């Protein structure tokens, strides 16, 4: 338990060690620690941001899906409407064509019947005239008896 010059030497060593630590040891380690803390903080912030982005994207997807579904429904409704319209048009057209055809056929049939009637009437008139000629055994003047024949023709109508 004696004091001697070792004390002074130890004092100097103490300051040298402290100075070296301050200069070469402490700053790099503390810097690395601070940088890592910052990195971790940044990473956590990025993770939070990614999470928020994800939920935002999910919401967007749901929105888009809903919109797509809606527009698909619209398209279907309008397509159905159009199809129904086409169908109606076609039906109306068909009905029109049928009616026209029927009318034409009826008209044709009418004229044909008229013509047949007229021909028949002519022939009946001729037959009547021929019959009358034979009955009367004399020649009838067609000119003179034209009125009579016309009357007969009218009567046969």
């Amino acid at each position, binding site marked *: *338990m004696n004091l001697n010059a070792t004390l002074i030497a*130890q*004092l100097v060593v103490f300051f040298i060690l402290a100075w070296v*630590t301050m200069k*070469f*040891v402490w700053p790099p380690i503390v810097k690395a620690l601070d940088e890592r803390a910052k990195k971790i903080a940044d990473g956590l912030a990025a993770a939070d941001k990614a999470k928020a982005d994800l939920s935002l994207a999910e919401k967007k997807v749901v929105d888009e899906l809903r919109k797509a579904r809606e527009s698909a429904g619209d398209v279907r409704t309008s397509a159905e409407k159009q199809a129904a319209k086409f169908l109606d048009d076609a039906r109306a057209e068909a009905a029109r064509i049928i009616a026209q055809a029927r009318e034409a056929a009826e008209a044709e049939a009418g004229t044909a019947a008229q013509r047949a009637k007229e021909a028949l009437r002519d022939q009946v008139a001729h037959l009547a005239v021929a019959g009358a000629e034979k009955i009367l055994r004399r020649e009838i003047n067609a000119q003179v008896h034209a009125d009579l024949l016309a009357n007969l023709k009218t009567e046969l109508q």
Partner: protein
Amino acid sequence: MATEAPTSGEYIVHHLTHMNSTGHAQKAVIDWSVWNLDTLFFSIALGVITLFFLIRAARKATPGVPGRFQAAVEILVEMVADQAKGIIHSAESRKFVAPVALTVFLWIFLMNSMDFLPVDLLPRLWAMISGNEHAYLRVVPTADLNGTLGMSIGVLLICLYYNVKIKGFSGWVHELFTAPFGSHPLLWPVNFLMQIIEFLAKTVSHGMRLFGNMYAGELIFMLIALLGGTATVFGFLGHIVAGSIWAVFHILIVALQAFIFMMLTLVYIGQAHESH
């Protein structure tokens, strides 16, 4: 080997004598011409080892994933930085004081740990190497009052430096004479006396505490070694049992004393920052 076995008293005294520059035990209590070469060698060697590992860790320090060694050093640095932050509020001062505390902690931890080596191992090796059977060697630098007081005086100088730096020279002198009792001129001598006593007490107790603990620990290891030296069954078993128990307990003392010295360093320097 000695020609005849030393008595217990001779054994202890031999182990408590420093290898100094004179070659024999120091006579005067204070003699500034004597150097304790063993204390100097071991404290400087352990200081260099401390710095070697710290610098290696600092070189490799990356903000990425740390290895185990880097993580261990970082845990120490964080511990010291947290303590410093709690005690010293000036970030500018912490740039110097926190590294001082880290150095002090690791250095003293290693110096205290020299106690774990068998008490006769290094002295016997040294006796064989030097060829002098009576060569003195003490391996625990913190069990030398010069070593611990050297460090505590270093802390005192840092305290004085920060006293002047923070309060200004006139502010500090003003505080020396007006605190703790008041600024009445009649109180000036009393205040000054109290301040001087405070500085002395702090520094002496700071160094003495570490020295006392390590000196006592070393002495008990020697006594336990003496027990084994009786070369009886009781002595042999007693040496093993008592040596194991004391060594395990001493782990606590080694770490605790290093921590206490570091904390007191921070506290004293912190006090230098506060005005009374």
